[in-house]
């Protein structure tokens, strides 16, 4: 039975127990705040980061894992595994995918490594990673896992709202949502990730309207198999969103998580996201190991 290692990055926002249960290898990005450098989710927790973010007057910055860091991880995994699938945050939001690709090229030949751009992040990356990890545990080969992961990416949709566009703008991750920057009035935009970039869905004027708009947007998806509800500093809206969507997705199929510090640095306090997973595409008969 082939052994395939599943690698992702810290922006996947997978709950710790899932990371452990499915043997997922997480490479952290780094976040810089007030002159200090932290490994995303390793040397700083989401809660601690939010405390700093809401008190600091500076804007945090982030950086991708180095090529060397990926080389290290890939080389270590090569000792135990026959192949690696490395799935990452949208290449249009971060250079992480690029680092992983370069690392693969330097150790080319030692073992097959598939590097995949999820064109999303947070649980938009997390759901495809889970799909890959479950198949890896079940003993599927790299090709099959690769194909299923790409299908899972197509079946995953991330939508979110922010309290202010300032963090996205400062971080340069604003994408087409730049169309809605620069208002003199209070604005609570609803955004989506599409093809790996942030695009605007709607401008609303108040948080309750933004939350209602977000719920409506999620309800418009014809198929919902699982949902992830992501918050920064445990926003109270999460429960309201979960309740409003309970008829479309039972609670036990919802994943609640905090946004990783790196993502929180780019969306700011008060952001709330929902990721829709439409469900696994069936594998063909001959793929069953």
């Amino acid at each position, binding site marked *: 039975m082939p052994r395939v290692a599943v690698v992702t990055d810290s922006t996947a926002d997978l709950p710790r127990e899932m990371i452990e249960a499915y043997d997922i290898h997480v490479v952290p990005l780094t976040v810089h705040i007030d002159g200090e450098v932290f490994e995303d989710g390793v040397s700083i927790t989401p809660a601690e980061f939010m405390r700093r973010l809401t008190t600091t007057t500076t804007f945090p910055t982030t950086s991708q894992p180095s090529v060397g860091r990926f080389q290290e991880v890939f080389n270590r995994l090569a000792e135990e595994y026959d192949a690696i699938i490395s799935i990452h945050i949208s290449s249009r939001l971060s250079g992480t995918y690029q680092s992983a690709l370069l690392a693969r090229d330097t150790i080319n030949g030692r073992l097959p490594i598939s590097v995949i751009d999820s064109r999303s992040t947070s649980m938009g990356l997390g759901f495809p990673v889970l799909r890959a990890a479950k198949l890896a545990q079940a003993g599927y080969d790299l090709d099959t896992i690769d194909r299923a992961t790409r299908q899972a990416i197509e079946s995953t949709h991330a939508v979110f709202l922010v309290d202010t566009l300032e963090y996205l703008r400062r971080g340069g991750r604003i994408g087409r949502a730049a169309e809605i920057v*620069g208002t003199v009035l*209070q604005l609570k935009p609803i955004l989506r990730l599409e093809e790996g970039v942030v695009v605007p*869905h709607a401008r609303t004027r108040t948080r309750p309207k933004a939350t209602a708009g977000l719920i409506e947007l999620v309800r418009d998806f014809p198929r919902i198999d699982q949902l992830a509800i992501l918050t920064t500093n445990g926003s109270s809206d999460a429960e309201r969103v979960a309740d409003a969507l309970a008829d479309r997705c039972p609670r036990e199929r919802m994943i609640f998580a905090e946004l990783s510090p790196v993502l929180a640095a780019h969306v700011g306090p008060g952001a709330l996201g929902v990721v829709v997973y439409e469900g696994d595409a069936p594998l063909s008969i001959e793929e069953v190991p």
Partner: protein
Amino acid sequence: MTREGARGVEHPARGEEVDRERRWSGATLIGALETAVAHFEPHVTAVNALNVFPVPDGDTGTNMFLTIQAAVREAQRLNHGSQARADEVLAGAAHGALMGARGNSGVILYQILAGIAESCQGAAHLDGRVLAAGLRRAADLAYRAVVNPVEGTMLTVIRAAAEAAEIAAAKDSSLSTVLAAALDTAEDTVRRTPELLDILRQAGVVDAGGQGLAILLAGLQRFAEGTTLSIPSDETVPVSTAPAAEMDFLDHLDELHDAEEFGYCTNFLLTGDNLPVEEVRRRITELGTSAVVVGDKTMLKIHVHSEHPGTILEIALGYGELHQVRIDNMTAQTRALLEDRHAAHPTAVAPSPADTTDIALVAVASGDGLTEALRGMGATAVVPGGPTVNPSTEEILRVIAALPQRQVILLPNDSNVIPTARQVERLTDRTIRVVPSRSVPQGISALAAFNFDSDLEENVASMTEALGMVRSLALTRATRSAEIDGVRVEQGQFIGLLDDRLRAGGEDPVEVVLAVLAEADPDQAELLTVFVGEPASPDLAGRVAEAIGDAYPNLTIEVAAGDQPHYDLIIALE
């Protein structure tokens, strides 16, 4: 025999004077319309004063004057000379009125001219019978154009005038006889408008549009009787029109383009951590013409003309990341723009300038602050105008013609601009939808309901629904003493309006605002936005915001510059 032109209108031949009473050729008709405009002009202020509410808004006299003036200009422009036919001149005048129509009264005036022009079709002369039939047709068109026709308005006046004209024409087809009958009845009907419409009685005024119509008929009648007045020249036009439209930097760059310009107009956003603004500006300026580089160290908006847009982008990439890159071939752009303007004439067919599925949101407002607020909420362009200066059909069309989008949603933001906006649809090959916002707060509420993932019709539906989700409050001063809907106000006092209805008056602006707010279900609302206007005293907004905050602690209050004329405060409650 008519021989006007040969001897000059000031000293008409005897034969022409006889003919003037009986029927008008095209050339004579131009003289008649010019006389009507000149006769109307001294009455503009008086008609403006016939305002139901003691608030500075919808100047009917100004709107009618500018509309009829546009009609005459177009008729003159066609310049058929002494051989001109009456039907050609009337068709030209109707088109001019359509393009120049401002406000409700302007649009109805256009309908009247269009009705007369229609009845005159095929006739070289306008005589009493043609005029009577034309007024009848005009009344029908005008009634049909209004969703809920109200008696005691311009509509009643035109219908009564048409009936009188028909009766007169049955006996005598002479133009002056028919005009005299129409005028008599029109004046009489205007006097009766307060009996028909209670709000006029309360305000102690006659209907302004009806009065304007009677004045125009009187001008025509004077001409029929031999008086010729000339139109004031362009330089002495008594009313200023709205200034050129303000547009978003990346969407409207015509001002920067010379007619003979060639090459590529290159626009983009450059973002970075610590952009050397001066250095970027210097290098961009070296590489092209008409360069504009604005912004700060984190984001620069760049516009430049160059034969080599690729080089510009490469240079910029050395400094940071590029966004919203747009490169237009200026020769093609100029051509498309001209064709599109030409398309404003209904007979011309224009090809699409650029394929785009995007929807443009065009709003009407006056004041830098309101303009900026609307743009921030997503308005692609803002046509200057509002309660006091209603934009013309043509001014709205001109702004739309300069936009790349093929679909346009119009937000009139004033009840008197809605009819003008509705005229735009059939004057362009673009798809136009009007979301009938009656105030800037409604416009902002509608913009907030715009959805990037929905199509035109879905957006029109949700934006229209959003109009009902906001209350519009306004604080201004009474332009005269009045008692309306049980509220008594003295000239110069502060008055408060809720959704265009007078609700409170008094000396203390804070008390007036609180009184109006109390009627607007503030407990149901989340957000209150105060737009500070030109006349507001410096501390007014702060005092009002504090008082509202004390009275309604659950409301989020934001204060923004509106810079709107005449209205101290405009307040949105949503």
